[in-house]
């Protein structure tokens, strides 16, 4: 009899035959909530964004029907100077934040990986900025950046012996993005620090012992054991920091609103302005599709690199 039944039917029956109906239903019931919620709030909006991007969908429903406009939105975005400015700004931000944030994370992780007194206290402490909400970070750094008498200006002026004039951190188009870099690196390096710590603890002690027997000093062990061992970690950290950097939004929206003179305009801020303030949801969705493609390319590069390092 079983020889006569078709293959897919037999398969389905065999799962239920093997585990029984009650367990089959239980498993479906346990998997379903996550699958349904992800479908509703992740897959659907994701697929919808490609469709909305090709329409003139407004934020508030209008009596006139939504029109299909093809690739018009993309054409208009790509011919908008402000979009290219925002893309250039996040690129600039990325170039600055990578050494600042990953460097700070790497150095703190290196130190915390040694046997220093109160190591665990420092570990917990160094992660505190990462749990601090970006809004609170903006309140703190908003006062640090005060022009002309804020703490940062006091430090800069007195360290340079009065040679450097006070800087209008957030108000000067030449400095605004740099200031955003400072506070962002301070806020977010904690995650990268922990990833580095995890990577450093994954390097086998035997390698260090072997290096020591070969006569390597701390410096030699760092270059010939720690650094090669951390290669996949470096790739991972650089990639997640880059992706994070391209999504720059909150600190800019709160502290500079993209100004002065569009010097801190970012892709996400550009998108939110188009979709929420100008109510052009179709246009904003087209920006979000472009953002997704950028992130996708970065993620694919990561996979390539990780494969090369054989992880």
């Amino acid at each position: 009899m079983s020889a006569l039944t078709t293959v897919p039917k037999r398969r389905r029956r065999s799962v239920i035959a093997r585990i029984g109906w009650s367990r089959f239903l239980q498993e479906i019931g346990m998997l379903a909530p996550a699958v349904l919620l992800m479908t509703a709030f992740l897959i659907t909006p994701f697929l919808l964004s490609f469709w909305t991007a090709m329409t003139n969908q407004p934020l508030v429903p209008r009596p006139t029907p939504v029109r299909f406009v093809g690739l018009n939105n993309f054409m208009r975005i790509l011919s908008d100077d402000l979009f290219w400015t925002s893309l250039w700004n996040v690129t600039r931000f990325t170039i600055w934040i990578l050494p600042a944030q990953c460097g700070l994370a790497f150095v703190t992780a290196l130190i915390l990986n040694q046997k220093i007194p109160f190591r665990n206290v420092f570990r917990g402490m160094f992660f505190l900025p990462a749990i601090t909400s970006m809004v609170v970070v903006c309140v703190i750094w908003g006062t640090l950046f005060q022009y002309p008498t804020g703490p940062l200006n006091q430090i800069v002026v007195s360290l340079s012996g009065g040679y450097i004039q006070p800087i209008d951190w957030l108000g000067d188009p030449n400095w605004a993005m740099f200031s955003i870099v400072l506070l962002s690196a301070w806020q977010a390096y904690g995650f990268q620090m922990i990833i580095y710590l995890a990577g450093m603890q994954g390097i086998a002690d035997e390698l260090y012992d072997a290096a020591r027997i070969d006569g390597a000093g701390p410096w030699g062990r760092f270059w010939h054991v720690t650094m090669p061992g951390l290669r996949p970690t470096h790739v991972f950290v650089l990639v997640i920091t880059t992706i994070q950097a391209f999504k720059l939004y909150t600190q800019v929206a709160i502290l500079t609103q993209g100004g002065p003179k569009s010097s801190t305009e970012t892709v996400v801020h550009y998108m939110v302005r188009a979709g929420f303030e100008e109510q052009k949801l179709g246009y904003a969705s087209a920006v979000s599709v472009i953002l997704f493609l950028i992130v996708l390319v970065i993620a694919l590069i990561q996979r390539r690199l990780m494969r090369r390092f054989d992880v």
Partner: protein
Amino acid sequence: MSDLALSPRKPTTSLNGYRVVQSISVFVIALVIISPLFMLFIASLKDDRFQILADMGSFRAFWVDNPTLNNFREVGNFAGELAFGRYLGNSLLILFSTVSFGLIINSMAGFILAWGSLPGRALILSLIIALYVIPQESIIMPLLIIVSRAGLSDTFTAQILPFVASPLYTFLFYQFFAQLPKELYEAASIDGASIFRTWWSIFMPLSLPALATVSILMGIEAWNQYLWPILITQTDYARPISVAIATFFGQDSIFWDRAMAASVLMMIPILIFYLAFQRWFISSFVGSAVKG
């Protein structure tokens, strides 16, 4: 110097200078990292917003002569213009609902993917890994259409439900459960435990590190949501404290005293939350994410 002289028997005596540099640098970094947070706390106890700014440039930023809780009294209301008590409550409600639903739903799914027998599990798993690439920012506009068409604007549901199920956390749980020994699962099924029971009474109690990691990551994420609540909340009803604090920046002259007190209010719960789970978090974190 005397400290160094006292420990000549250590095998690494040549490194003592190195150790000193290390200790000094860790204190300097700690100072840079912590002093802004300390300043925030001190400033929130000062009454005069002009004094706060004036003190900022000197060591007075780290000292308060007559500490007062006036700022907290001003912003700690539950109604009116400075209803930060209410916003704080809203944020707490969102935090606890998102994290508790999230722990249950993502761990159940991760468990089935690791130990269940449903056909197509491998497919779902690779789909989930692929979904992880989609940034929240790039689906937020269509999500706004879906949620507002569903009549959920300005509700707590709109701020909880979309963020409960997450590819990342399902995958983290999957990874954690998959590396637990097979015998554990087999013993449970020999004893006749249902798959639900196996998950709840055998695997979950062993998952403290994973639960702590996911709690902290989800908690920080839920607590710090900013873009989505701006888009979806129009009134005080469900507005979280992050959005409320940001409105200080919209004013001509910023009331730093109140902003500082509101910020400290916002720091306290997530700090407690973090300290509660930190022990398991730091040691278990992202060893798995690095591989993923």
